[in-house]
C-alpha cells in the first residue's frame, strides 16, 4: 500500500523488513533480544574473532582500540577510554558489537555470541567474576563505572557569555612569544629534507601514478 501521507509516496514497511534493520538497543534495555552468554564462552569467541586486533585480554593491539583498562584515568594527561573506564551504558557495547563487529565481517555474530563477548569484555574490565553469565534479564544490573560521567552540552552557559564579549582590536598585548612549533615535532607526512611540502607531494603523486601505469 502507498503511504497515507500528503504525497502518497513510498510503501508500508513490512514487519519482517523492520525486524531485519531495526537493531538498536537503548540504555534501558529496549531492543535486547532473548539470549545469554557466559564469560567462558566469551573468552573462546573473543580469542577467535576479536583478539587479533583487541588483544587476548581486550587490552588492544598496536593502534587498535583497547576495550579494557584505563580505570580512573579520565582526568589524567592521557586518559585511557575503554568500555570499563568510559562507556556510560552497556547497551551501547551490545548494540555496537552486534551491528558493526568484527571489523570487516560485521553482523555475523548470533545474539548469544554477542551476550558472551560482552560478558568477556566486562570480565576483562574486572566488572564481573569469571563464572558470570550475561542475559537479557540481568543486563541492567551491571554497573558501569562512568555512568554518571557525562553532562549535556553546556557551552551555552559556560562559554557563550565569555565569547560574545566585544573583542580587543588594537594594542591588545605587550609581548607575543612563540611557545610551540609544529616543525620541531615534525610529524607532518610527506616532508622531505629540502623541506618543500609542495614539491614532495608532486613527486609522490607522480610516483604513485607511475606504479599504477606499470
Amino acid at each position, binding site marked *: 500500500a502507498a503511504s497515507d501521507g500528503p*504525497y502518497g509516496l513510498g510503501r508500508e514497511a513490512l514487519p519482517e523488513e523492520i525486524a531485519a534493520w531495526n537493531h538498536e538497543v537503548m540504555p534501558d534495555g529496549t531492543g535486547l533480544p532473548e539470549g545469554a552468554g557466559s564469560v567462558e564462552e566469551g573468552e573462546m569467541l573473543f580469542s577467535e574473532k576479536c583478539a587479533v586486533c583487541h588483544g587476548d585480554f581486550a587490552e588492544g593491539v598496536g593502534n587498535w582500540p583497547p576495550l579494557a583498562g584505563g580505570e580512573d584515568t579520565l582526568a589524567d594527561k592521557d586518559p585511557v577510554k575503554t568500555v570499563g573506564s568510559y562507556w556510560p551504558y552497556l547497551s551501547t557495547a551490545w548494540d555496537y558489537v552486534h551491528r558493526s563487529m568484527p571489523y570487516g565481517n560485521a553482523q555475523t555474530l548470533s545474539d548469544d555470541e554477542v551476550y558472551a563477548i560482552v560478558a568477556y569484555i566486562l570480565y576483562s574490565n574486572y566488572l564481573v567474576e569469571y563464572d558470570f553469565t550475561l542475559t537479557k534479564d540481568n543486563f541492567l544490573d551491571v554497573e558501569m563505572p562512568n555512568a554518571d560521567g557525562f553532562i549535556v552540552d553546556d557551552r551555552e552557559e559556560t562559554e557563550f557569555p565569555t565569547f560574545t564579549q566585544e573583542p580587543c582590536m588594537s594594542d591588545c598585548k605587550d609581548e607575543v612569544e612563540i611557545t610551540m612549533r609544529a616543525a620541531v615535532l615534525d610529524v607532518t607526512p610527506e616532508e622531505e629534507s629540502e623541506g618543500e611540502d609542495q614539491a614532495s607531494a608532486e613527486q609522490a603523486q607522480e610516483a604513485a601514478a607511475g606504479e599504477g601505469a606499470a
Partner: protein
Amino acid sequence: MTASDKGTKASRRAFLKGALAAGGTVAGAGAARASGDPLITETQPWAQYLGEGVDATPYGMPIRFEDDVVRRNVEWLTADTISSINFTPIHALDGTITPQGCAFERHHSGAIELRKQDYRLMINGLVDQPLVFTYDDLERFPREQHVYFCECAANTGMEWAGAQLNGAQFTHGMIHNMEYTGVPLRTLLEEAGVQTEGKWVFVEGADASSNGRSIPMDKALDDVLVAFKANGEALRKEHGYPVRLVVPGWEGNMWVKWLRRVEVTDGPVESREETSKYTDTLADGTSRKWTWEMDAKSVVTSPSPQSPIKHGPGPLVITGLAWSGRGAITQVDVSIDGGKNWQTARLAAPGQDKALARFYLDIEWDGSEMLLQSRAHDSTGYVQPTKDALREIRGENSIYHNNGIQTWWVNSDGEAENVEVS
C-alpha cells in the same frame, strides 16, 4: 614524469630559492630581458599546434600541473585507512565551494558502493505508517537547495595539546562546503506521520559501521536535508552515494552517509558514536555529550605552511575561510602581529547561514616576519576564541570541537609554520 620535466622542476625550485635569498622578486612578466621574454617573443607550441578535441575527456580531471591539490592522509592518526580520515587541500583552494573530488572523507567501515536500484530508505518507529522509499520515490518529493559546510567534529583535534601538523590542510582540512539538493527530512517524516511521543530520530547508514546517531526532533523538523545531489551532480561514492543526511551547522559525524533508516524514538539511543566517540572530556574527567553545533571558526589558508609567499615583499593577498554552525559569518578580523592588533578583513560575499565564507586582507608586505591570525564573528555575536581561552574551560583532552584561533609564523623568506603564541 619525464627526465626533462624533472629538470625543469628542479631548476625552478633552485631559481625560486636563489631569488628569495637575493631578496629580489621572482621573475615573471615583469622581468623582461634586453631581448624580450621568449614566452612572448618566440612562438610557443600551444600557439602553433592543436589542442585536444572535445571528445578527449567526457568527464575531466584538473590539469596535471595542479596534481598537488589532492586529499592527503596522515597515516599515524588511525589504525588503518578504512576507519580513517583524509584532508581537503584548503591551502590551495579559493572561493567557498569545495570541488567534490578533493573534498575530505571520513569513513568508519570504508566507502561502500551502493547502486540507486539497491537503495532503500526506511522510516519506522513512532510513526503512523512505517514506510520504505526507493531512490526514485525520493526524487518525486519537492526539493530544496542549500549550501552548507560539513566539518568533522575532530577537525583541528590534533592541535589541542599544541602545534602538531604543519599545514592548513592537516590542521583545518576535515571540512567541505557544497551546494546540496535534496528533500527536507521533515517532508519524509510527515509522509509517515510522527506520533506525539516521538521526540528524537535515530539515523543510520547502510555500511557495516552504520554510524547511528540520535537527533532531537526539533532539529529533524527544522533544516535537516535528505540529499542526493552535491555541487550539481550525484553525491560521490565516498560522500554517501546515492543519499546522505545533511545536518546544517552540526558536527560532520551526524551527516550520515548511505542513509538507510530513520527511526522515530522517544529518547536518544546513546549509540557508540555519541558515547564512546563524539563526547568531549573536560579537565576534571567528566565529558560533555551531545555537543552538536560547530562553533564559529576561521583559518588563514594563504599564506600558510603549504602555501608560502614566493613573490617577495610588496602586495600580498592574505585569504582564508570562516564559518559558524550557529549562523552566518558577519566579520573576520586578521592580525599580522600575533593578536596585538587586528584589522577587519573583506568578505568576498555576505556570510550565509552555516556555510563557508571567504575573506581577504590585501596588504603591502615589507618582508618582515609575521604572526598571522584570523578571528571569526558570527550572527549570534560569538567571537572565535583563542586556543588558550578554550583550554582554560575545557583542558586539553576534548579531542573534538577545537575552534581556537590558528597562528602561522611567516618568516622573512615567506615560509610559514604552525605555531602557538603567548
